[in-house]
Structures are given as structure tokens and as C-alpha cells.
């Protein structure tokens, strides 16, 4: 009798626990289902570099048709992680503003954004993996 009672009470508990475990893992999944590269671009980059990736003449360089974007992955990751400033020329136009460091973004987020900008607006270059971002982050900010 006592055993039966235990089973009756324990079984639903186990079921509930099992369900809640599933729910838990679901919510973890939701958290781990991050914004896509294009959504992150809108949130963190679009204000300056614009929706069409064209930048702003005289202020912020274009990402579309910019060989720095489709060139060396390491160099690109370095710019995003540690920022850059000073005068640069992109497609024969001068730019001289500050790109703030975006190191507060995760490796995965930066990889997503950069894969997005390397394969949009006519750009074509290999995706960037989170491990590549981690590698550059570990090397630290290059000495000026």
C-alpha cells in the first residue's frame, strides 16, 4: 500500500520534472537563438554605415564595394574589435572619423555581422567564424 502511494505521488512529480526540464532547455534554446547577422547589423552598425551599406559621404566609409570588407578577415575583425581612427581613403573618397571599438559584442555576434556585410550589397567573401574572432580578441589590441 505504502509503495503504491509513493508511485502515485512520485510518478506525476517525475513527469512534471521532465516537462519542466524540457521547458528549461527550450528557454535556453530561445536565448541561444540569437539575432541574425542582418538584425545585429541594423542594431549596431546601420546608424553610421546605413541600410544600403553605402556609408555617408564625407563621414562614414561604405561597406559595399569596399575591399577592406572583403579582404583580410583578421584585419576586418581587428577593426571591429578595437576600432580605428584617422584619415582613410575608400574608393577615392576621404574619411576621417572615429570607428568605436565593438568588443562588447560576442565572438558569435561579430562573426554574424561580418559574414553579413561580406556577403551583401554585391560583396562576396568567405564567412567569418566565431573562432576567428576569438583568435584576434585573444591577441589583443595591436600596439599603435
Amino acid at each position: 500500500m505504502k509503495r503504491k502511494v509513493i508511485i502515485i505521488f512520485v510518478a506525476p512529480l517525475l513527469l512534471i520534472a521532465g516537462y519542466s526540464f524540457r521547458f528549461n532547455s527550450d528557454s535556453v534554446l530561445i536565448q541561444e537563438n540569437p539575432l541574425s547577422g542582418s538584425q545585429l547589423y541594423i542594431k549596431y552598425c546601420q546608424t553610421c554605415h546605413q541600410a544600403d551599406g553605402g556609408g555617408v559621404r564625407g563621414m562614414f566609409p561604405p561597406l559595399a564595394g569596399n575591399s577592406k570588407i572583403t579582404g583580410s578577415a583578421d584585419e576586418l575583425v581587428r577593426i571591429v574589435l578595437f576600432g580605428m581612427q584617422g584619415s582613410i581613403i575608400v574608393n577615392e573618397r576621404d574619411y576621417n572619423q572615429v570607428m568605436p571599438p565593438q568588443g562588447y559584442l560576442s565572438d558569435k555576434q561579430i562573426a554574424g555581422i561580418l559574414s553579413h556585410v561580406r556577403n551583401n550589397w554585391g560583396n562576396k567573401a568567405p564567412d567569418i567564424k566565431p573562432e576567428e574572432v576569438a583568435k584576434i580578441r585573444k591577441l589583443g589590441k595591436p600596439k599603435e
Partner: protein
Amino acid sequence: MKPIKYYLFPLILVCVIISGFCIRNKSDQLSITADNGGLTLPDGFSALIVADKLGSGRHIVVNGNGDIYLALHSLHKGSGIVALRDVDGDGRADSIRYFGKTISTGIDISGGYLYYSNFDEVLRVPLSGKELVPAGEPVVIATGFEAQNQHQDKTFALDGSGNLYVNVGAPSNACQEVDRTPGSKGIDPCPQLDRHAGIWKFAGDKPNQGQMTEGHHYASGIRNSIALAWNNTNNKLYVVQHGRDQLGQFYPNLYTDQESAELPAEEFFIVEDGDFFGWPYCYYDQFKKQKILAPEYGGDAKATGRCDKAKSPIMAFPGHLAPNDLMFYTGNMFPDRYRNGAFIAFHGSWNRSPMEQKGYFVAFVPFENGLPSGEMETFADGFAGVKVIKSPNDAKYRPMGLAQGPDGSIYVSDSEEGRIWRIIYKKK
């Protein structure tokens, strides 16, 4: 042969008639284009294109003899200033000459000198009135400014009494520990206020004055005022400030996209000695009609905190329109209501995304007794050439500089294609 006195009078008469015709012909022959060079203007106004493809135009000034000087933001044919002269009187420039070794933004004429500025200094060179390109050697008037990578244009105003007022913009958006980075706090007190984000006053004729030595720290707490002008009616300095950026991007919990597009206001200030206007601690909310504590300094989009100490604007414009030049109209050509009123060139926004961009027009604000006497109105529009501007690059032209000609015409410069328009008014 009769003595000269017999035909002197008829001769003079003929001369007067001929010269009268010449003068009349000169002003009648202005080559106004049917489409006003792409601009839309109030009734009775029309425009002609003075010149095109001059380079990236910034501020502009017209000398008493009609010669035009335009500062350029990047070297064009190796030079940073372009001078233009209309020889045949049709309004279009016939002689176009480039000079000046550095890029420029600020440019003005006072006391027979052409003043111009780059990122590091303000210079002047004498103008003879005959030569289009100044023949003399330029002399540095104000110098010793710290290098900075944003808001670096040293635009200026001259008061006609020998003083020079130089805008030194803030080297950041909001004086954060890490500039333009979400979550980074504002440095308190902001050390950038020592050498930046204000107006410095100099003697207009004394060479090599250092910002921190001979320069007088005239006013503070102005983020960046590319647009500044002296008002002769009350002898005061007026500026229009570029308000801070990215409220919504960095504080999405406090500001919606729409609020971030509209806030903060671009503020119109009367600047007097010792004034403080609030940057970086405060910004102006044109809907609440008060200065609000910046979120980097603990603000929640409502609290006013220490902002009662900041001087209020005389007028507030929608956010991010980028007021890049200010001019008080002193001419006689335009109708009376324009006299002593303010023209403002709104270069146009870049950071209202995801909303469409705004600005890209020249505004007029009527004035009485040194204060706005009515709402801002659109004076010249159509620069962008498109109805909806998603990105600044969609705009074909962007109004950048304003100047008044000796006949009371207004000249507008463009930063994108290097066009100059001349706007005239004709009584019906």
C-alpha cells in the same frame, strides 16, 4: 572747331545713357534657369546656378565686388579654396581659380581680409579687391588647437569690431568613458570641456594666438556649432548646435526609434561671455520644452538633474537636421519681412535610421528685436532631388554654406557636387 563746352554736355548725356543701359542690361541678363537649378522657392524668388563641380563645398562668402570664395572639405586640384568671378554679368562664374594649401570649412571677409580655417588654425590674407586670388601670404591668427577626429572644423564668426569667435567642437558624442559605446558612462566632470565644446574668442588681427594662451574661453557646453553668425542689430553672437547622436541606439529601453529620430533638438543659441549650454550633461527635448539629463549621466529621458544651470535655446529644431550655416539677412533685395531674419542651411541627417532622413533644405526664421518672431519656414528645398531620403547618399545635393551678395542675393553652396546657387527676388 567749337570750344569743348559746346559738346561736353551732349557727350556726358550720351555716356550716362549708355552706362545706364549697361547697368540695366547687366542685372536683366542674369541667366536664371526655368527650374531654378532644381530648387523650390517661395513666390517671387528664383535661382541660377553660379557654378558646378567645384569640389566638396563648405562655407562661402561674397566680397563687396561680387567675387565668391568657397571653402573645400577635401583638396580639389591640390587646393582647399576656390575663387569665382562673374565677368560678363550673367550671374554665372566665368573665372574660376583654386588656391590655398589646406582644406577648409570656415570662410569669411572682414576689414579687407579673407579669413579661412582648417582643422588646426584660422588664417587671414589681404584682399586687394582687384585680384581674384589673394596675392599676399596668409598669416595664422588662431592656432594651438588639439587634434581631434570628429567635429574638427574650426568654423568662426567675425563681429566687425576686430574680434574672431572660433567654434571648437567636442571630440566625442557625449563624453563617455569609451566614445559611442553602449553602456559606457559619461565622464564627470567632462574633461573635454577644458579645450573643446565651446567658443574661443581671439583678436582678429593678431598673429599666432594660441587657444589656451591668448584665446579667451568665451562660452562652453556647446557640442559643435558649425553654424555661427554675428548679429549686427544687437551685437551678439548666435550659433546653432548639432545635438548629440544615438539616444535610441544606446538606450533602447528609454527611447523608441521615433523618439531617437526626433531627439534631441538642434538648439539655436544666443552666446554671451561666460555662458554654459549643457553639453555633455544635458540635451534639449523640444516636446517637453526643457533640458533633460543625458542618460550617460544617469538620466532617464525625464529627469532634469543639474540642467537648470544650462542656458536655454531661443529656438529648437527637430533632431539631427545638421544646421551647418547661419546667416542674418541684411540686404534690401528681399521683401521687408526677411530683413534681419535668420537663414539656416540644414545639411541633413544621417542618424534618424530606421526612420527616413530629414533636413536637406535652407530654412528661414523671421526675427524681431534679436529674437525669433515666428516659426521656422522652408525657404529653399529640393536639394536632395528625391522625395524620400533613406540614406544621406541618396541626396544629390546637400546645402552647406550661405552668403549674401552685394546686391542682396543669397548664395548657397553644396557639399556633394560642388554647386553654387544664387537666389534672387524680383518684385512683381
